[in-house]
């Protein structure tokens, strides 16, 4: 057993060596980065790919006949192909690059659903959604007179499936659900939910931003109509993400934004649209970002999602045990299926003070409502502290977190 543990430790140390920022110190202490749900760190392979593009292949994509443009286009489209294969899309036309999951959801709200909605039609979302999967539907409600209904969340932070079955109605047009909660780590039964939605003719959009770094995602197996992704949550750069959409739906949709690239021909009399995926990618894209996202997909696949999941589940279990040893600490979100995200509160210690104090010991955690104000309010709290663990975190880091937490308790209680 000890040989297995040593091999696991060595494996994690090899992974950590890929992340240059982990050598930093904060307030004279080694950085312990427990905030990957806010944004993950980037391995050197991603940084190298983006740097190489800018140093060796920088040119605008698609439109040029010169060699550099061809190279840039190849790198850009290769990244799209990698992502499409990674999520088992039928083909690359079903993968639209966006700025992130938020823009992808807004695209679906305005370009897919808005033309179809009538006053009184219903949109279903859950109580644990990130604001990015709440506000676009509220805006749509104001524009169309649609009704927004909310699927409740149980006291342990799981989706109330029984309530969902009762909420779906003949007027339901769209069901939006987060795959993995950024605030409390719950993994939702998206396959089951999408099956239920299909049985009622309801279109589904799954927010996969927090799922992609932790889980294997197969959009055909899930059976969703749309799936959204954010590059910076999955070890890729900021400013890039993607929307998966079933080709038939994307073909039928009007464009999202107008401009160059998304057109086939332009005259002042009439303009025709380009084919997928370009129809939804107006303007010069975030070429370096897409290449970086492709490199992030390569990195995740090289490490292996099975290995990542095994390591992170071990960390989750260990961190849960250690945190619960702190007097007055309560974990928020105890779903039976979780990723390595731990939201917690401590009696007499406000999360904001906790965050400042542990920061001075080198620990980066997040405090506040985590862009899920309705969910945090549902648990009767103004805020929580959140430690979100990734492939580069270790049991030793968790062990060293406990004395820092304890110091906060001793100072403030």
């Amino acid at each position, binding site marked *: 057993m000890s040989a297995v543990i040593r091999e696991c430790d060595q494996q994690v140390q090899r992974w950590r060596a890929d992340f240059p920022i982990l*050598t930093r110190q904060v307030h004279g202490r080694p950085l312990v980065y427990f905030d990957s749900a806010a944004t993950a760190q980037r391995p050197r392979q991603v940084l190298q790919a983006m740097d190489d593009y800018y140093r060796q292949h920088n040119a605008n994509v698609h439109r040029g006949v010169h060699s550099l443009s061809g190279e840039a286009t190849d790198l850009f489209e290769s990244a799209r192909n990698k992502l499409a294969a990674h999520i088992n899309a039928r083909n690359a036309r079903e993968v639209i690059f966006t700025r992130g999951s938020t823009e992808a959801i807004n695209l679906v709200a305005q370009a897919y659903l808005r033309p179809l909605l009538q006053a009184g039609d219903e949109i279903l979302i859950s109580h644990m959604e990130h604001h990015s999967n709440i506000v676009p539907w509220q805006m749509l409600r104001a524009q169309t007179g649609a009704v927004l209904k909310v699927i409740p969340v149980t006291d342990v932070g799981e989706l109330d499936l029984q309530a969902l079955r009762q909420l779906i109605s003949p007027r339901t047009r769209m069901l939006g659900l987060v795959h993995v909660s950024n605030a409390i780590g719950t993994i939702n039964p998206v396959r089951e939910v999408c099956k239920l939605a299909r049985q009622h003719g309801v279109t589904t959009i799954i927010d996969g931003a927090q799922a992609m770094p932790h889980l294997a995602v197969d959009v055909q197996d899930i059976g969703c109509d749309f799936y959204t992704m954010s590059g910076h949550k999955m070890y890729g750069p900021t400013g890039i993400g993607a929307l998966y959409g079933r080709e038939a739906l994307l073909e039928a949709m009007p464009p999202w934004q107008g401009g160059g690239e998304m057109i086939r021909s332009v005259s002042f009399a009439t303009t025709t649209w380009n084919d997928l995926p370009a129809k939804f990618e107006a303007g010069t894209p975030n070429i370096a970002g897409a290449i970086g996202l492709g490199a992030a997909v390569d990195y995740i696949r090289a490490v292996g999602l099975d290995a990542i999941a095994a390591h992170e589940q071990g960390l989750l279990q260990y961190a849960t045990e250690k945190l619960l040893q702190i007097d007055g600490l309560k974990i928020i979100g105890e779903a039976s299926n979780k990723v390595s995200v731990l939201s917690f509160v401590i009696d007499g210690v406000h999360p904001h003070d906790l965050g400042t104090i542990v920061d001075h010991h080198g620990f980066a955690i997040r405090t506040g409502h985590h862009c899920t104000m309705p969910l945090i309010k549902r648990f009767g709290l103004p805020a929580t502290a959140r430690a979100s663990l990734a492939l580069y975190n270790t049991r030793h880091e968790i062990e060293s977190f406990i004395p820092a937490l304890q110091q906060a308790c001793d100072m403030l209680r």
Partner: protein
Amino acid sequence: MKSKALSRHSSRPATCSAEPVDSADTGLDAIYQQQILQHNRQPVGFQKPLPHGSGWQQLHASNPLCGDEIVLAVKMHRSASAAAGKPEPILQELGFNGDSCAICTASASLLCQQLQGLSSQRATAMAQQFIAFVLCQQPLTDERLQPLAIFAQLHQLPNRHHCATLAWQALQDLLGSHPQQTGTGT
């Protein structure tokens, strides 16, 4: 008073050696000074529920980004100014409650402690001065604000500025000619 740079860069292998926790070594003592911790543990003016009725005004203030929520209550009294012969509003009593971090709670406690019995005009000026002290490092010249110099280290923590100023911004709204909100007794 010890102080430390907020961050230092140094190259080291990406191993995870934890060092012993040592409060004296971290600069936390400069931010969480004993007076702040004391005002957090036993805040002046903290009441549940807050009084309401004749002369009392309340205002709910929150910083949703960090989770601080307070209700500030002030009982105004109009006393004749000997010099001008005109009634001058006086902050006769102050109270607050809510769910807020130690910085916010201590700041609200010191507000209640230092402003009692002062004129509305002076309290308004003090609020402006304290907010400018926190946000822009302007000096604290009003002698009744000197105890709030303990928040000086927040200059280096912009993400905690609004914790310290929340109660004072609420006071400005309460004393202003057009208060933004009135709360109910809580």
